[in-house]
């Protein structure tokens, strides 16, 4: 049998496809395996009354974006350049953003 490029290609794509499908199997497997840990985290959140993910510890308003007040979060303006790197990764909390829009329209002409 002579080697044929298309056969190599098919073998390659079969392998890739197998790996691709394997990621779904792996995802299902890991989801099942982490159910307990997730439930434990949920319990911890309930018991301690936690409100935010501990993703960014560099500033108050990035550690607890949902608890930040109007003036401390995104200190100058929601669209201003951020002082802390993580501040430019995530949007301001939704309820802050909508309030800022109100303020914007009110101050637009005044000053």
């Amino acid at each position: 049998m002579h080697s044929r490029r298309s056969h190599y290609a098919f073998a390659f794509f079969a392998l890739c496809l197998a790996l691709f499908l394997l990621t779904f199997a792996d995802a299902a497997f890991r989801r099942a395996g982490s159910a307990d840990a997730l439930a434990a985290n949920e319990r911890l959140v309930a018991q301690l009354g936690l409100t935010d993910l501990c993703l960014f510890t560099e500033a108050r308003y990035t550690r607890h974006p949902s608890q930040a007040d109007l003036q401390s979060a995104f200190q100058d303006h929601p669209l201003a350049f951020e002082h802390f790197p993580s501040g430019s990764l995530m949007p301001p909390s939704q309820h802050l953003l909508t309030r800022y829009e109100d303020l914007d329209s009110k101050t637009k002409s005044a000053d």
Partner: protein
Amino acid sequence: MKTWIAKQKALIDFTLSSLARRKLKNLGLLLVYTIIVFLLASVMLYTHALRHEAAQVLKSSPEVIVQRLVAGRHDLIPPGYLEKLGRIRGVQSKEGRLWGYFYDNVVSANYTLMAPSSASHDFGQVADGKIVIGAAVARERGLAPGNLISFRSYTGKLFIFTVAAVLPHEAELVSADLLLLSETDFRSFFDIPAGYYNDIALSVANPQEVRNIAGKISETLPDARIILREEVLRTYESIFNWREGIVLVLLSGSILAFAIFAWEKASGLSAEEKREIGILKAIGWETGDVLKMKFWEGALVSLAAFLLGYVAAYLHVFHFSAALFEPVLKGWSVLYPRFELVPVVDGFQIATLFFFTVFPYTVATIVPIWRAAITDPDAVMRG
């Protein structure tokens, strides 16, 4: 059908032989293409899984949080507020919370200090002089249960605590920077008098009524700022929105670069390629055969890039904790949670990614060929 397959295989043979002639260039292209898919897929998988996990975990966070604002800043809840809230109908339970931030200048890290009030948590009530720490704090300060740790409080007094326990590694996503202490220790550490709290957590009898109750609270306490759980959840639904900051810059930059690269590669039909298409037409290929051959070229390259990039992104995000994103996500923070996200894969997102990576490249490969492929077969002899 058999003929059709044999024909497509033959066209694939040819297109692969063609690609193999410029091995380095085409492998380079495949590599760049794969990296783009990898980046896009990594961002996609990471943010989707994180949002999903946030929604899952934070659905048990407090239903209503009442803060007090003074001159636009958070202020302590004075005594009497808890009682006033208790008189509002529909409030099931209320609890003053004690929590705050502490900057540890030994390792230049910010901690979240908290005095858990509920007696029923897994680590028991924290006794005076004891402390329960998050896993990242333990890692950063090299602490284990039984060790002593001292902090100089904002009032200048030195406090020494014994580490009672370390919160589990699996909980780092919500608790990496926590320090749990007793209420007495917390009050004396931050010098908060008895009866004062940082904010109040409420639960309501009927979740449908939560907005009405929020309205009543702001009537009762005009200086209160109320945060509902649904707002907390919404904050995390939109975290890492694709329109946001670095995500957007990263994506648009790389997509644009690749678009230029692919366009240049695919549409810059060289004289050599035109000549080859002329030859194929002259030896009996139809216009459709040439287009099919080129279709396979585009489809194979982009499909390979998609599959390789996606699998690599999956491994990166879920098996290597998105290690490449760490420097970006970490920013200036010292404490960074180490967590393995639970893989949640959205089929629709993958389909979108597939469409936006495979389809444009394939089209960009075929379209410029069109004009060359419809030339007359005798053009070769005239030229």
